[in-house]
């Protein structure tokens, strides 16, 4: 039954491998180092956001504000670098601080005012996007030597693929998140909260601290994703990353984490991200879908992956005698 815990993860990995193999069978070019490097680079900011989202969803919450936080961070960086002489590194630190504090504030609101995360973070989403507009409605280019230097840091693989520093950051974030979630008390408390907040409280989990920490992590990682995004586009734009929260949620869910909380793995999220990236790459390679068919196909594939998971999970649990479900839960 140990494997039944990790089963969704294995299913996601298997799905990814199968899907990739199918794509390569049709377009051999998709095995090139370029495509692999692009999967990492292009999805770096989404992946980092999804890590934070995994924390939140594991705890039974949801964070709709991440897309706006990314946009805000980008605009903030661009405006600060344009209008002040601050070094980008200090600007990064400042941006991370703002995003983290913002997340923590949402966490505190959720905990102390007993408001549902969906609504608190929805309001947060409006607020951050609004603040980004207030900073600048125009797209502000970032033209700083440091940015150029960061962008020039990459390893060119045979075949032309460029493995960039942001891709590395993505992998590091996932690594750290895995350690935090599985090997620290905070991480286990996240799972505990997701199992049942009430029970966790009775078991002595510091709910206030944990909730605040979770949303602070999500906010902070969204801020980090904002930095990555600003490196990616060398600009800050208040209209950027609209709807990214839904992409991140979808990636987390495809990665096998239950939206009801308490069950899932951050490694699954990684493959969730890769699957979403693969879908897009495939659509570009195909190149024959109209705008509307693109949407329909993305929705259809989302549905397919969910059903695939359901089906596999059902196949594997049907053989294990059904738990009585009588474990007390609130």
């Amino acid at each position, binding site marked *: 039954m140990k494997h039944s815990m990790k089963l969704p993860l294995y299913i996601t990995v298997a799905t990814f491998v199968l899907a990739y193999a199918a794509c390569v069978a049709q377009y051999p070019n998709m095995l090139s180092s370029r495509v692999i490097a692009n999967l990492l680079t292009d999805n770096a900011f989404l992946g980092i956001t999804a890590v934070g989202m995994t924390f939140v969803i594991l705890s039974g919450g949801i964070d709709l504000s991440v897309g706006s936080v990314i946009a805000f961070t980008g605009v903030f960086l661009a405006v600060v670098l344009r209008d002040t002489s601050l070094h980008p590194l200090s600007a990064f630190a400042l941006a991370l601080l703002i995003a983290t504090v913002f997340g923590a504030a949402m966490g505190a609101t959720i905990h102390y005012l007993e408001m549902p995360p969906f609504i608190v973070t929805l309001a947060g989403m409006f607020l951050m996007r609004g603040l980004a507009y207030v900073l600048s409605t125009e797209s502000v280019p970032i033209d700083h030597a440091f940015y150029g230097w960061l962008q020039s840091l990459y390893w060119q693989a045979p075949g032309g693929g460029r493995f960039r520093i942001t891709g590395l950051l993505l992998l590091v974030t996932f690594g750290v998140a895995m350690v935090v979630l599985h090997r620290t008390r905070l991480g286990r408390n996240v799972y505990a909260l997701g199992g049942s907040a009430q029970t966790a409280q009775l078991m*002595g989990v510091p709910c206030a601290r944990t909730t605040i920490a979770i949303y602070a992590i999500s906010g902070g990682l969204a801020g980090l994703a904002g930095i990555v995004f600003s490196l990616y586009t060398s600009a800050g734009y208040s209209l950027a990353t609209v709807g990214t929260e839904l992409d991140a949620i979808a990636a987390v869910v495809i990665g096998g984490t239950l939206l009801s909380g308490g069950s899932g793995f951050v490694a699954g999220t990684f493959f969730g991200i890769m699957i979403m990236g693969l879908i897009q790459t495939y659509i570009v390679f195909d190149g024959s879908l109209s705008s509307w068919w693109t949407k329909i196909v993305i929705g259809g594939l989302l549905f397919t992956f969910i059903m695939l998971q359901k089906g596999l999970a059902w196949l594997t649990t049907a053989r294990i005698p059904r738990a009585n479900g*009588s474990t007390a839960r609130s």
Partner: protein
Amino acid sequence: MQSDPKPVLHATGISKFFPGVIALDDVELQLYPGEVHALLGENGAGKSTLIKCLTGAYPRDAGVIMLDGAEINPKDPLSSQAAGIGTVYQEVNLLSNLSVAENLFLGRQPRRFGMIDQRRMLRDSKDILAQYGLSIDPAQLLSSYSIAIQQIVAIARAVELSGKVLILDEPTASLDREEVELMFSVIRRLTARGLAVVFITHFLDQVLAICDRATILRNGCVVGTRKLAEVTQTEIVTLMLGRQLEAATHHHERRETGDVLLSLRGFGKRGAIEPFDLDIHTGEVVGMAGLLGSGRTETCNAIFGAQPADQGEARLRGSPLRISTPREAIRNRIALCPEDRKTEGIVGDLSVRENIILSLQARQGWYRPLPRAKIEEIAQSYVKALDIRLANLDTPIRLLSGGNQQKALLARWLATEPQLLILDEPTRGIDVGAHAEIIALIERLRTQGMALLVASSEMEELVAYSTKIVVLRDRRQVGALTGDDISPNAIIRAIAAEEEPRA
């Protein structure tokens, strides 16, 4: 041990108000090191509330708590844990999505270089659980084990956390004898080390077996603290209820039962219950006995269609019957009062009134709402008949004490006027008064011609009302007792026959 004059925990003037309810009124509790202190009272007397106030799970409205002579003011369970008070709250309060080991060590996992030391945690868990006679794999999810095992894990966790005081709120509700004995031996070991233990239960025999003193609550007030060596069981019951309880006599004039109501042949569900035969007559109470996990609940669920059977056939009054959903069962006037009130019975936020008429309304269909007057009449009459204690009928049912919730659920099913009533552990967590009432009710329903199927872990109770008892083991029917054969000893013998050692 009472020679030690200094109490380890001394709570005075504890008061707690809920909107419309005074749950605790100026309650005093003294615990001496090395004693097992029973906290007794009817359902809704305020026992669990007192515990939650003591450990900070609820903020109290008044009162002082002294631990070892110093005032403490726990504002959440975490701080009382830190102060050395370990608690098992009512209903298993563990996290089924974590492993057994993590449940044992949540919040205090052993660490190496700041990281959780998984290996050590598993090893320590094994050692701890071994003290309770459990040799299970602590790396598995908690939810993969039965409620009984979960309960033991909860106790083990609380014991590990209790430096000074251990509080157990109805820990034995879902344990059978053997496990209770094991638990008692652990408690004795702890008290020998000077720990104070608070023990809440509705089983007076267990109280007499292990406790030294008892504090009795009624309607949120302390009505007395007694040394158990100096009182009789009847006195305690009288204190709890504020009245005398008629002796629960095992009057067993074996009456003729009516026609066969439900007849099961080769009835079973793969992986859940092996095929069995059973006839239930009108005017008959069929008891189901067995150890934990013997398949009683699954049998009940199969007949009710909650986990539909996949083999065999059923006949209702002679005509074939296939039940694959609870709705079909209800339509055939079969009712099931489930074992797990909280998740399968009550609809917490709905009022007691709505909970009582819910099944009747569901059967009538949404387009035929019950008239208001009728609803009021039904609800009122059952509240009166079953003596359900509540502020008013608009109270959300989740605010009722466990026993009263159970009675409200019974009312829900009685309102549908079933011909077959299945009761799964109808008296779990119910106080002595209500217990007697429910037994009397079962008897009354039977004489009115209803057929009942009752699963219970309490042999005496089964013996008191059953006209026939089937015994289950390992999801298999292994025996049946009728007439004068019915006695606790006979049941135990039937269960124990060729019993293999437990895993």
